[in-house]
């Protein structure tokens, strides 16, 4: 019983980690709480749904198409909304407000055209079977989620640590002016970061949409509560912290639902968020700078 719940918790947690990964990447490099991130999640799921429905695409096509389209949307959104503020070196609250307004406009526009009814992937889109493993059931969708999360995280780490683009991104995260003086094309690097995080958000949207099989324009907004909790518990901008905090949150939620009540589960993320702010605002590993006024 407990081991089954731990497995379910790990699966749920890896979806949270995957979702929060792109969100924390944006903050870590661009120093922006970009709330349009929730929209990348929704649009990724919707594009995947559309190609699956209209063209009968399989998950192996729908997932990358959904994720990459979200990446493109992210580049455009960042360019329209944040270029001007970045140039003016406006404060972090100005960019937060702009993305907040934009994301409401985007969700609502999507709702006007698509409606707010819950939509589902076509029947038989993914295999619903589950395998038993020493008394523990795990479905193929769950394995797909965990597997994809592993692959995406590995690719992201390799990209950041081993490639020239990764070096550029890390330099930008360190100090924008210094990076520019070293000859780094800042505009291009910003676009690359937006694309990466949008792709991660879109992939999370497809996988989570698949897991709960419920797709709706505001799904990204409802996911944001977990996103906020994970990036703050992990430490703002800390990728490793976000991964661990995501998995931890998933496990704690499943255990709370199992041993306390399923209502209490919904409050877990917010409770840990507030506790973290009270007792350890720098996050799990204390690498984020919690600027004190």
């Amino acid at each position, binding site marked *: 019983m407990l081991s089954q719940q731990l497995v379910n918790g790990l699966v749920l947690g890896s979806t949270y980690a995957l979702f929060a990964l792109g969100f924390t990447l944006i903050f870590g490099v661009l120093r922006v709480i970009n709330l349009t991130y929730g929209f990348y999640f929704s649009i990724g799921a919707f594009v995947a749904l559309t190609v699956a429905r209209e063209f009968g695409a399989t998950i192996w096509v729908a997932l990358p198409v959904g994720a990459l389209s979200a990446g493109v949307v992210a580049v455009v959104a960042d360019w329209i909304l944040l270029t001007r503020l970045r140039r003016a070196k406006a404060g972090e609250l100005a960019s937060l407000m702009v993305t907040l*307004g934009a994301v409401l406009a985007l969700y609502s526009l999507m709702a006007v055209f698509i409606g707010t009814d819950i939509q589902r992937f076509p029947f038989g889109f993914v295999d619903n079977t589950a395998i038993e493993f020493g008394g523990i059931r795990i479905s193929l969708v769950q394995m797909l989620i965990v597997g994809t999360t592993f692959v995406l995280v590995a690719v992201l780490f390799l990209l950041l640590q081993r490639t020239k683009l990764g070096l550029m991104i890390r330099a930008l995260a360190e100090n924008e002016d210094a990076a520019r003086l070293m000859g780094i094309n800042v505009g291009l690097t910003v676009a690359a970061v937006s694309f990466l995080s949008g792709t991660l958000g879109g992939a999370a949207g497809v996988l989570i949409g698949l897991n709960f099989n419920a797709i709706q324009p505001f799904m990204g*907004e409802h996911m944001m509560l977990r996103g906020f909790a994970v990036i703050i518990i992990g430490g703002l901008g800390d990728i490793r912290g976000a991964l661990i905090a995501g998995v931890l949150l998933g496990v704690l939620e499943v255990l709370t639902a199992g041993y306390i009540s399923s209502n209490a589960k919904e409050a877990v*993320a917010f409770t840990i968020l507030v506790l973290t702010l009270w007792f350890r605002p720098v996050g799990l590993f204390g690498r984020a700078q919690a600027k004190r*006024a």
Partner: protein
Amino acid sequence: MDGMTMAEWLDDFLFTYETLIHALGVNGLLALSMYCVMAVGQLSLGQAAFMGIGAYTGALLTLNLGLPFWLVLPLSALAPAVVALVIGGPTLRLSGVYLAISTIALGEVLRVLYINAEWLTGGALGLSGIPRKADLWLIYLLLFLAVLGFWAVGRSKIGRAMEAMREDEAVAGVMGVNLPVYKMGALVVSAMLAGLAGCLTAHSNSFIGPNEFGFEMAVTILSFALLGGIGTPIAPVIGALVLTSLPEILRPLQDFRLVINGLIIVVAVLFLPRGVIPFRLRRAP
């Protein structure tokens, strides 16, 4: 107005537009609650959540305990103030994004809790049959007093300190402004105003539901303040008036109401950092 006396016409007008006139007053209060936090250079996105706490507290006290309205109203302001202390305590010591993030998260978690705690909040159906005790004169009296209060504070020494914080917090701190006290004070007052607005809404619509105080409402309240600007306390109230009555006048816009509210924030931050009413308060000598 043929055949109608002025009083009859007024009665008729009030009857037709009653909901809108209530909403205008309540949204004015909400815009002021946003103004109050922004005036010290902070950003709280929990105004809708605080409003919801006030609305549910007020409705439950009236429905379950049958308390008189003059007691329900202050209690509905007190409940969100306590929540503001819990969230403001740690976040106001940190950089501004922490308050913004935890207050949006508050709205999200409350929405789900209202839906799940069916035995208390009526779940997704909400609470109905709340007696209509929020008279029009009461709403507008409170709005008037709030504007007057902010006006007086804005012209005083406290107002100067708040403006200094908005322009440059570090400098204001060095000049001897007690930053934590001002920030916490502003957040608590704003939560109380939002709680009042929530209680008034509950007792004028006679119905409240879990989705009325969520993300859309939070962003809408911010758009009131940003459209008007925060130079004077009357500016955000005008912003609220415009954005509340606009969809009523231009019916075809109704579907796009939230799209417009969102875009107003984008345009205001990018191009009109001081709002459309850029005047500032004259100071008392």
